[in-house]
């Protein structure tokens, strides 16, 4: 069974013919060609595939794409506006909040979800928001600092 599914990703509308359980992460990467969203563990453990759905961070790897019909999906590619990076993105660059960079899109999305809802999080709230994102190289100190100081660089 393949149906036409209407998705909205980064403000654009896509009509896609998808199988029953086509996953959002596969659709974003393979059908839309947006490779910023990563595959990691592929079942809700590492956070590399994190995207925004109506402002909430979700795991794209376990979300059937058709369940997102009627919702707005934002990937890492959709954060910048007119070539200008968001405050969170700039803070990650200035604070070196990454090393290999594989987990970075997911972490920036999680941080964005947090800061848009709660612009002045406590240290614990930042750590709580990172609970679903694994990083295997930097350790979390520079990631934490990047989020803590993001407001200095502009809106999330």
């Amino acid at each position, binding site marked *: 069974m393949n149906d036409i599914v209407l998705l909205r990703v980064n403000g654009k509308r896509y009509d896609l013919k998808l199988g029953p*359980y086509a996953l959002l992460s596969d659709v974003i990467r393979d059908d839309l060609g947006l490779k910023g969203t990563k595959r990691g563990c592929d079942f809700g453990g590492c*956070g590399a595939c994190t995207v925004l759905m109506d402002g909430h961070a979700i*795991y794209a790897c376990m979300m059937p794409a058709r*369940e997102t019909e009627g919702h707005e999906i934002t990937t890492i590619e959709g954060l910048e506006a007119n070539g200008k990076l968001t405050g969170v993105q700039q803070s990650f660059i200035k604070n070196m909040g990454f090393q290999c960079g594989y987990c970075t899109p997911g972490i920036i999305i999680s941080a964005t979800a947090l800061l848009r809802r709660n612009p002045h999080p406590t240290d614990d709230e930042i750590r709580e928001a990172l*609970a*679903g994102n694994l990083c295997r190289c930097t350790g979390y100190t520079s990631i934490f600092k990047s989020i803590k100081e993001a407001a200095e660089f502009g809106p999330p």
Partner: protein
Amino acid sequence: MVFKPSDYFQPTTPEEVCELLSKYGKHARIVAGGTAIYELAKRGLADEVKEIISLRKIPLRYVRRDEEGLHVGSATTLADLMAAEQTRNDPSMLVLMEALHEIRPMQVRAVATVGGEICTSLPLLDLPTALLAVDTEVVIQGPTGRRTILLEEFLVDFFLNTLGKGEFMIEALIPTQPAHCGAAFMKFGRTAYDFNLVNAGVRLALDAKRVCMDPRIFLGGVGRVPFRAASSENELRGSEIDGQSISRAVEALGQFKALPQIHGDAEYKRDLAKVLLRDCIKRASERSLVVSSQ
């Protein structure tokens, strides 16, 4: 992609859901947030699932309060429930909030649902233990109509509940709690992100003399379903809550059966349960006293 069901239905009425469930039987599964089914599929435990039935197009995403209590639609996400105004300013709901805060990460809370937490029927989950402590009932839609059952009777075994053919969960009903009621939830897991090794949900109501009425004590993670510590409840019922009665209640747990896991054997879990229970009774009783004095 490892999970390849052949059909994906998005019915718009509860009756349609029942028809689909009746038609496809054990090959059909309800999906709401989809987190549980996909993880099972990845582990090779959902090979028999061929038809997916989504609840997205049925208005089951709500939290409302009436004279019966708090009604929570089965497709309500954990994030919805955490943010619901209807749970504010109600100290008995703190037990739910504490459980929801222990369910991580936010990526899961944004999509996982109250119905999924209940109907997955897995003792490693946190919300059921908290819901049990406040006498939650489960409202079920079947081909011939609706029925209501206590959550305590709904949960039967690992991945097993009393849903019959063609039936699915409509809502959880958390009845209005007794006066002067305090409740608390605690969890111990290996990491903040992990399933519980043990969790505890306690509700009690203290009268003006600190005498405990109507206690509920449940422990999750130790048995195949959350375990009701009836002997501990008996120690508290009619007693003044103080260090001594709490110790008696904890000791009354005795050598209960606990399922060993790779991260904790039975003896370790029993020890953990005692510590959690002591702290949880204490916290619930303090809340009850605050409410009583208002």
